[in-house]
């Protein structure tokens, strides 16, 4: 009988422990309204009308977030959107102000991944390029770039897997950088012109540019690059490229 009790006790305790830990998994976030009231909008934006106010002392559940708006659910089941600014005036279960932190300049400095798109001029051709970069340190990163340039005579596809970017002052608002890279450039003459062969050449380039953290995860970027294309002809080809665009960091 005693053995039976002990096993049952163990069973109960293990079950309650497991239920405690499983209660953690679908995390529910409750906050308490500390201002006189918070306004609930019908949509995630300032233009959408307020249809309900939750009064001081009411607990609301945070469901999910879309940009600066939180979908919340009141105790009596009303669901609406509350701005991050108003939500920062609520208290979490430990009685402290809810800490709503958005990615800021500091996160920008220590970012790991960056993705973006740029457009510009590739020696007379209009160019569009996509890039993804990984930061090894705050100062040094490598970027993979795929660009497409097209003009009246030919179109070019440029791929670079190695582009070392050095940012000497990552904490500056407008942060300059230098880059060295290499890759391949494929030239396809326009089909309306007399038939010439497609060709692929290797290139190396150096460049400089600036990045600017704009808001949240969003950044702007402008750069200049000078390409030396190792052609099969006697002379190497030199090309200047200007680009501007935006990116995101994660």
């Amino acid at each position, binding site marked *: *009988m005693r053995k*039976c009790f002990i096993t*049952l006790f163990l*069973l*109960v305790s293990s*079950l*309650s422990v*497991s*239920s*405690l830990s499983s*209660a*953690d998994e679908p*995390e529910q*976030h409750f*906050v308490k309204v500390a201002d006189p009231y918070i306004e609930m909008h*019908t*949509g*995630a*934006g*300032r*233009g*959408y*009308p307020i249809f309900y106010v939750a009064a001081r002392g009411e607990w609301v559940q*945070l*469901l*999910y*977030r*879309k*940009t*600066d708006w*939180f979908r919340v659910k009141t105790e009596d089941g009303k669901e609406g959107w509350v701005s991050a600014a108003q*939500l920062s005036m609520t208290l*979490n*279960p*430990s009685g*402290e102000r809810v*800490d*709503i*932190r958005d990615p800021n300049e500091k996160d920008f400095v220590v970012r790991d991944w960056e993705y973006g798109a740029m*457009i510009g001029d590739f020696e007379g*051709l*209009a*160019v*569009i390029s*996509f890039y993804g970069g990984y930061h090894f340190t705050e100062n040094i990163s490598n970027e993979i770039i795929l660009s*497409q*340039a*097209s*003009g*009246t005579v030919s*179109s070019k596809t440029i791929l670079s897997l190695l582009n070392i970017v050095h940012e000497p002052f990552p904490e500056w608002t407008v942060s300059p950088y230098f880059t060295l890279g290499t890759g391949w450039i494929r030239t*396809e003459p326009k*089909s*309306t012109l007399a038939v010439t062969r497609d060709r692929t050449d290797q290139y190396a380039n150096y460049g400089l540019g600036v990045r600017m953290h704009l*808001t*949240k*995860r*969003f950044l702007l970027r402008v750069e200049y690059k000078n390409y030396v294309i190792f052609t099969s002809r006697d002379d190497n080809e030199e090309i200047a490229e200007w680009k501007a665009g*935006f990116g*995101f960091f994660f």
Partner: protein
Amino acid sequence: MESRFRVFLLIAALALSASPVLIPMASAAEEKAGDKAEQKPAGENPVNEVIQQDPVIQPEVKRREVKQADVETENFEIGVFAGILSIEDFGTNPVYGVSLDYHVTEDLFVQGRLGYSEAGTTSFERLGGGVTLLADREYIYYDVALGYNLLPGEAYLTRDSAYTTSLYLIAGAGNTEFAGDNFFTIVWGAGYAVTASDWFAVHMDFRDHMFDIDITGEDKTSHNLEASLNITFYF
């Protein structure tokens, strides 16, 4: 007798562990105590210092962190679209593709699109009798655009159902592969989104794809107008 007792205890155990009310309440109380003890470093607040020195027996409670940053975000929107594309000189044809949006703020978003269509015949080809201008009639485009939610609002479909809507403007650039060549393309337009539920929306998009082309014997900027219906999902 013993087995019946065992069953009874087992039921009690299950009921206790499955109860959604009792345990969160208990854990919330424990958390509260845990929070106070752990949150501030010692020395900052004399009250906390007392609390930290106080417990002789440390309760083994894992404090549940309440971080608002953990709230799930739904800033991405993925979609499929279908519509019609008027390819200048080549007739109006069906177009379909995929889209991906990233909402930066409530006003600003970035949209990437990939679309496919096939060009029809020019009047020259139809009247010329057996003349073929193009061997490759595929029209494939991709573009990246910035969007701005200009007019957010609500639509009332019936007396009891209201849907949030938004009229937005987009402008961007991309590439069009057409007639075997690549063309740098400027894209601009407007759209109307109706958020049908928490997780999906219906967009109507109207846009112009502009690029310079010389395929019909003269250099010109061609305008290719597209109207499409886009079903998107938030994630």
